[in-house]
């Protein structure tokens, strides 16, 4: 772009992404692209059995192989790192205690047992293959049913069973709701799925034995959370731990928290005094990183004949695998699902029970839209209610959905519902889907022996949710901070606590800041991913919080700098700051395009002369707390055609009507929605992190774990409602809505094509669909 762009409002424009200059030229820098002097390469030896006692680990041959510098097992880690566990202050939760490398037992296929450190990756793998582990196998706990069976062994010797947590809660008058009501039942049991970032996990630990400083370069979405974890486990003072996050190739929840491999790498570097790199390979990632979903949700709904849902009785059983992903306690999911259970519907009563089990599987790791089971089960339930009562699924939604008129109100579970346009989104989606014409086409198709279906799903997404959402879940939403600094040339540096990995925050936060500051977009640089530079956030990027929280923090920090600038400029120009504005990087009297001085001059004056109002450089920090409202949401509509002879499902049309407030960058918003739906389509039709009855993992490669390609993901039509502002920061997240709403939309469409058959598990493989056709 030549010259300086005219003053404009960058918010609301699909401006090009700042990130793309490096990404499209191969100049991105991901963890595996980094080389440090004297760097070593690590690979992990992992368990080949699901459950067993370790009899011996023979590393002697490996240690003497060419290029091998060290082989570390749990023995070598003793005294170097504290045992790992969840925070002790979570009540009523069993606390498994374990080590970064398995010591006495292995608890899933892929459990890390030893780490080989060598001069090169090839040599490290050669040595790994020379290590012999002898196991005394134990019976595997391969399912929730196994975990509930007292005959099966416990995973943790000091925990009396494989039940880690249980809770029972009641909201509203459940008994009254069920009294005299019709009861519709549904059990939903989706498969385990994997996050599958295209870049696997990895890190480089670089300990300087002279200074005692540890730098950990990590592909993570929560650098401060990781720093906090490492500091504690390694007994390394916080000021001597620095986490630096380069470009991150996707995460989707998998790169959150402290991973056991992080600990082992840092210990290795501290012991060896050299940088140690580990880059996870794909089989490790599929097998060992983490999985999600696979909850069993049983619902009884009390309904009136007109489809009014009076109450729900819900039991969720959750399999969290072998080890908790730190710092999340095994109980973490229940409160989110419970609180979101009634979704966009006015349902006045909920009975809730949740049990959580340890099994011999990879850890449960938060995955995009962690509460998704409630959307899946509830939206399938709405269609089931319609079938059983002989009603139109759309009418059942209409009867229960929150209307604009009844807001603000509260969900029975606590959070305030305000500013959501669920009803409007539903009507608009039905209109766009051509509901009436479709039903005629469907009848005609059936006569021709063709199976076509149309399904809907409605959802709300806490993005980040109202201020009373997190208290309803017995937790709190951490605040979000940002720094802003006017540079000496009048450009602006915004430092965020986000750790973006595809979300485009270098662009969107710059749009917000440039608009607020009155400077060209190219004059703003967004800094992230270095705990030495960035403000603290235990979360980093996750939970659809950036649009509101990080944008808000950037806005407030920029505004604060702007106030200082105007103060200084007012002093120089002898004009009241309140009579000044910044337009096009010029500070000028309001409404006087000819007057004023370049922002760079003001900045220069401030840096060199420190006039009144200058405060250690033109910089500010801000804290953003959650504003009211905070919901994104809408309705998805999906059309499918099913091959009646093979069971193959083809998505023939997919549309979304959604509200996430004002769009900072429409192209980025739509990228989040489409990408989320692609993952949801994968969950609905393809993906399966499958274990057998002995807890052997069957989906370790990309030939077995089926990520959708361009041929399976349909074009997606999107309409935005851009709901009313309840707060100045009217931007809301859209990271998770696509992933949670797509599986039930596809499921309801398939069920509709098959005449309303109950579908209770995913993915809907051709074989399973054919079974449904057969009845």
């Amino acid at each position: 772009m030549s010259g300086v762009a005219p003053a404009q409002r960058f918010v609301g424009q699909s401006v090009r992404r700042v990130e793309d200059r490096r990404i499209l030229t191969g100049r991105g820098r991901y963890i595996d692209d980094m080389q440090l002097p004297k760097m070593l390469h690590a690979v992990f030896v992992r368990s080949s059995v699901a459950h067993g006692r370790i009899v011996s680990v023979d590393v002697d041959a490996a240690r003497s192989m060419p290029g091998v510098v060290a082989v570390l097992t749990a023995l070598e880690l003793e005294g170097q790192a504290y045992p790992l566990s969840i925070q002790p202050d979570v009540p009523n939760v069993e606390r498994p205690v374990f080590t970064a490398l398995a010591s006495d037992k292995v608890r899933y296929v892929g459990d890390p047992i030893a780490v080989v450190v060598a001069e090169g990756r090839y040599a490290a793998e050669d040595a790994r293959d020379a290590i012999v582990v002898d196991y005394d196998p134990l019976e595997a706990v391969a399912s929730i049913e196994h975990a509930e069976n007292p005959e099966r062994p416990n995973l943790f010797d000091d925990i009396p069973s494989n039940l880690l947590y249980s809770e029972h809660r009641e909201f509203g008058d459940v008994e009254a709701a069920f009294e005299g009501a019709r009861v519709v039942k549904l059990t939903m049991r989706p498969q385990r799925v994997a996050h599958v970032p295209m870049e696997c996990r990895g890190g480089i630990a670089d300990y300087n034995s002279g200074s005692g400083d540890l730098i950990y370069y990590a592909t993570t979405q929560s650098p401060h959370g990781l720093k906090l974890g490492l500091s504690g486990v390694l007994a390394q003072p916080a000021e001597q731990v620095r986490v630096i996050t380069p470009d991150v190739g996707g995460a989707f929840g998998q790169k959150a928290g402290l991973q056991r491999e992080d600990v082992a790498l840092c210990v290795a570097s501290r012991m060896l005094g050299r940088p140690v790199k580990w880059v996870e390979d794909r089989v490790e990632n599929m097998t060992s990183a983490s999985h999600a979903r696979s909850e069993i949700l049983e619902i009884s709904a009390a309904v009136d004949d007109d489809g009014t849902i009076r109450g729900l009785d819900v039991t969720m059983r959750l399999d969290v695998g072998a080890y908790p992903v730190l710092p999340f306690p095994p109980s973490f999911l229940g409160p989110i699902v419970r609180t979101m259970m009634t979704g966009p519907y006015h349902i006045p009563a909920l009975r809730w029970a949740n049990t959580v089990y340890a099994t011999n599987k990879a850890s449960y790791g938060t995955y995009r839209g962690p509460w998704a089971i409630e959307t899946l089960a509830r939206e399938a339930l709405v269609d089931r209610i319609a079938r059983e009562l002989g009603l139109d699924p759309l009418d059942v939604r209409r009867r229960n959905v929150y209307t604009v008129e009844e807001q603000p109100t509260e969900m029975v579970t606590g959070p305030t519902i305000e500013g959501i346009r669920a009803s409007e989104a539903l009507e608009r989606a039905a209109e766009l889907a051509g509901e009436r014409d479709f039903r005629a086409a469907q009848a005609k198709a059936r006569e021709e022996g063709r199976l076509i279906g149309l399904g809907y799903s409605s959802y709300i997404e806490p993005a980040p949710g109202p201020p009373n959402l997190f208290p309803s879940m017995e937790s709190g939403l951490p605040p979000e901070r940002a720094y802003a600094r006017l540079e000496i040339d009048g450009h602006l540096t915004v430092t965020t606590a986000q750790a973006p990995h595809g979300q485009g925050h270098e662009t969107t936060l710059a749009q917000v800041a440039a608009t607020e500051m009155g400077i060209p977009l190219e004059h703003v640089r967004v800094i992230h991913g270095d705990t030495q530079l960035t403000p603290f956030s235990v979360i980093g990027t996750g939970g659809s919080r950036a649009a509101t929280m990080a944008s808000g923090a950037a806005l407030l920090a920029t505004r604060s700098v702007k106030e200082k600038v105007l103060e200084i400029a007012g002093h120089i120009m002898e004009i009241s700051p309140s009579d000044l504005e910044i337009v096009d990087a010029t500070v000028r009297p309001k409404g006087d395009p000819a007057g004023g001085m370049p922002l760079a001059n003001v900045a220069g004056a401030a840096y060199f002369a420190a006039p009144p109002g200058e405060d250690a450089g033109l910089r500010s920090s801000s804290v953003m707390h959650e504003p009211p409202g905070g919901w994104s949401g809408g309705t998805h509509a999906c059309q499918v055609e099913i091959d009646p002879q093979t069971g193959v499902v083809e998505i023939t049309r997919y549309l979304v009507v959604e509200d996430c407030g004002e769009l900072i960058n429409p192209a980025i918003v739509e990228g989040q929605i489409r990408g989320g739906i692609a993952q949801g389509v994968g969950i609905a039709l393809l993906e399966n992190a499958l274990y057998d009855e002995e807890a052997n993992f069957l989906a370790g490669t990309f030939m077995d774990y089926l990520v959708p390609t361009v041929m399976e993901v349909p074009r997606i039509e999107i309409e935005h409602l851009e709901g009313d502002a309840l707060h100045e920061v009217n931007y809301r997240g859209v990271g998770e809505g696509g992933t949670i709403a797509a599986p039930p939309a596809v499921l309801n469409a398939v069920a509709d094509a098959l005449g309303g058959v109950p579908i209770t598990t995913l993915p809907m493989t051709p074989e399973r669909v054919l079974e449904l056709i057969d009845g």
Partner: protein
Amino acid sequence: MKPPAFQYVAPATLEEALDARAEHADDCAVLAGGQSLMPLLNLRMAFPGTVIDLAGVGELAGIREWDGGVAIGAMTRQRTAEGDALIRDRAPLMSVALPNIGHAAIRNRGTVGGSIAHADPAAELPAVALALDAQLVAKRKGGERTIDAADFFAGFLTTALEPDELLVEVRLPAMAKGHGVAFHELARRHGDFALVGVAAAVALDGGRIADARLAFIGVGGAPVRAREAEKVLVGAEPGAELFAEAAETAKSELDPAGDSHASAEYRRRVAGVLAQRALAEATR
């Protein structure tokens, strides 16, 4: 996920290649296009002492007319074969099967001979070879023999090739001019190995089926030729009822296995469906 160490031999002539094959017969892997071997090496599921890279053996690549049919050098790249006019004329079944293999980047490297010699039961080209009664030319140091496709595929990733032999040419005998072909497969995703698939070639004469070939993939350890079903077809007038009968017969000739992607029963059933569709297309 890196390959294990091996000795690397890159012969420049067929003679050198056969010498190397003989020398390392007990512990070597032949690298043709590498699209099957390289994943096995990277995953460390294969540990060959020596890898013989055939890319430098120019005489192994090429497509020529042969006895009214076509002969394809083992090292001919799949993407080259895909666009070849002679193959389209003489062995159109090969032409319609090739685009089903993986993706462009795979076919750019993958070779016709490599796929057949690797003998993956879900791969397309072994079924084409089987359906077309291919003659597979194998050479060893000082010797050559021709193996009928019917005798070539011995089981899962197993062929009749001896450890010191190389597959050097794939000869596809001509079928009647103007015969119809179709290749149908069902994969979970576009480009994946098929759960099940079928190659069909049908020649008509005077409104009746004069010659019919039906070979299936993904239905066991090796591709399967449904010869009883072919008998049902030959001499009859093409039509939906006939194809249904042939498909039923074919299903009785198949003994698929189940795995995490599909059960044996599903494979058998869909094999029948695809057979009917392929026969309909091939006789259109």
